[in-house]
């Protein structure tokens, strides 16, 4: 494996779910939910990528796919060049064993209360993965290591916290324990799926600061998933990472966090920016800059550009053809899938849809 190879590489990943249905007729057409469609994403070592999107945009499915918890129905996902699902296959004899891949990709869930076993103390919850992966570690060493981590995430005295049960911890403390559990495995990538959304506003910055600090200290990469643009921006911009925007299963824009926020290219990114309240009283409430408030059903996503049903700038062309992902600027890091950032005459000469303007 070469040094500049990405830790995780998703290429053209599709995840489609078949909905149960059709009643008793086995030949009835089943609906397919296209949760993730044609996503390309590389995560380097020491990288921070934040993904934002509405509910139903497929961001959680993308995250699960990225850490090898969800088998993609199309495309491939590889860890340091080794295809994850091939490694998991029977008698595959992979270069990197699946157990190592599994250990290297960790996850922090959204609900800190539900992700810890209520019948186990913090210490016993945290000891379980260590017993599994480092069986040669003695009980004293194991405990010392766990206590060190508990203290490191700001819960002191650690001896006190180690013997508590989850219900004796606050939401922020539970989420810290989940963070320790992920870090104990010394992972390469941690998926943080809405990891701060359930916390009180006043605690979110603190939790994100802690994640950033540990990210730098342990050389871990983070895939941070959120519906909140300001949280995503906070963590991605602090780490000098990237910000990606998902809409109905597609990654419509991705680039350096600061650039995406300051210079959004996709109309949907602009809509998300509008939706993120800023402090200030200069302007009164404004009309939502979308033609349709509700997100379409991912079962039958609109043809062409999927955003055309809501986009304020959609034309006939958007309804018929899907825009390619193109680079904005010269370094190619900021990419967007929208006709508006191209010179394509097919878009610029096309008539706007009802209620839209170019």
């Amino acid at each position, binding site marked *: 494996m070469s040094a500049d190879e990405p830790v995780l590489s998703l290429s053209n990943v599709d995840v489609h779910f078949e909905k149960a249905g059709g009643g008793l007729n086995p030949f009835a057409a089943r609906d397919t939910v296209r949760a993730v469609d044609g996503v390309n994403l590389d995560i380097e070592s020491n990288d921070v990528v934040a993904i934002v999107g509405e509910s139903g945009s497929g961001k959680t499915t993308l995250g699960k796919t990225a850490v090898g918890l969800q088998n993609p129905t199309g495309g491939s996902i590889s860890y340091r060049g080794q295809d994850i699902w091939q490694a998991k296959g029977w008698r595959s004899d992979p270069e990197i064993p699946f157990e190592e891949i599994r250990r290297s990709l960790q996850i922090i869930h959204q609900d800190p209360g539900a992700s810890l076993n209520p019948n186990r103390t913090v210490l016993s919850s945290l000891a379980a993965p260590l017993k599994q992966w480092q069986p040669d570690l003695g009980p004293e060493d194991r405990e010392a290591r766990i206590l060190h981590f508990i203290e490191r995430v700001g819960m002191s005295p650690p001896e006190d916290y180690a013997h508590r049960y989850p219900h004796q911890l606050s939401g922020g403390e539970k989420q810290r324990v989940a963070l320790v559990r992920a870090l104990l495995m010394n992972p390469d990538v941690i998926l943080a799926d809405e990891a701060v959304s359930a916390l*009180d*506003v006043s605690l979110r*910055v603190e939790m994100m600061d802690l994640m950033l600090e540990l990210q730098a200290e342990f050389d871990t990469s983070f895939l941070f998933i959120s519906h909140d643009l300001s949280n995503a921006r*906070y963590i991605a911009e*602090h780490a000098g990472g990237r910000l990606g925007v998902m809409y109905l299963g597609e990654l419509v824009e991705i680039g350096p966090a600061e650039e995406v926020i300051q210079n959004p290219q996709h109309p949907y990114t602009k809509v998300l920016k509008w*939706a993120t309240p800023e*402090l200030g009283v200069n302007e009164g409430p404004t*009309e939502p800059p979308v033609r349709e408030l509700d997100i379409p059903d991912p079962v039958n996503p609109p043809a062409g550009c999927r955003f055309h049903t809501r986009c304020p700038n959609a034309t006939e062309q958007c309804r018929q053809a899907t825009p390619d992902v193109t680079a904005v600027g010269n370094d190619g890091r900021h990419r967007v899938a929208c006709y508006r950032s191209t010179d394509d005459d097919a878009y610029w000469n096309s008539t706007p849809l009802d209620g839209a303007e170019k």
Partner: protein
Amino acid sequence: MSKTSSTLHERQSSNGTADSGSTGEDIILECRDLSVAFEMDRGTSRVLHNVDIDIRRGEIIGIVGESGSGKSMFASALLNAVVDPGKTSGTVTYHPSDDESDPVDVLGLDKGPLRTLRWEDISMVFQGAMSSFNPTMDFREHFVETLDAHDYDVVEGIERAEELLADLYLDPDRVLDSYPHELSGGMKQRALIALALVLEPEVLVMDEPTAALDLLMQRSIISLLSDLRDKYDLTMVFITHDLPLVTKLADRIGVLYAFEFAEVGNTAEMVENPRHPYTRALLNATPNLDAPLSEMRPIEGSAPDPVNVPAGCPYHERCPMATADCEDVKPPMELVTDTHEVACHHWRDVDDEVPLSVGVER
């Protein structure tokens, strides 16, 4: 449970309120000494403590606080809807819009009149729209049932419901014939707002009505609410933990800390010139798109226990400006301007001690 109405009137006339209630403004809901307490094994838990506030007719007031600051209790107390074994004390007076009707002592109402008041005069919307509807009934039945129970004309009421749904960017025919599981969370939440308004109430109390929704839907509902207020002459009480969101909607904002108001003022003053160190900390702790990253910081410490609220200023344990005075003497509400008041001993010096980091033009 509450005072009789005769003592209520005496109290009103004698009360030189801190909350500009005596300036002859058009008040619709008046709270005095409003407290809620729960008896627990380890002591009395006071989850709302001597709150005095006036809600003016036609305004949107935002009530902001962390989890456990008493904001939901405030909503329940306004409607005399605190669940057992909670005890509500103090007074809530509702002034109907027509001049003939007498003021209503909300906490003293019997069951029947209280039910009438709750839907027809003061209506409420809770956070969990998902669980507010009966899954076996379609939306039309929900509207019909509500209209029937209050002896309203159903045909007229459904017409009003259709208009309300259209105002909320929903397709009335589709929604009325759908069952709750057939709509998305954002659509259900909007249908719930329409249901709350179908009996033409004067006041709409909303407790975290958008917290479970996506940002885009939150922000859209916020702008729809503002249109609804103008169209139907409503008064709104909007309770949330999201300070930036509420600045887009509210005329006034009240910040609750430790079960009482720390600061109340017009939105512009609260954002541009907050005087309470807690309000500033809250503003500084909120991630937002404009502020320089280096200046966002968390609030140290944690919110106080309702059984054991610190003496003196309840914020002194977390406050960087706290002095010996703050530990002993509870700061009274002081007027900063006519439309802005704060409970802090040191509000005049707050600029030096707790600078405001958010990228707001001053």
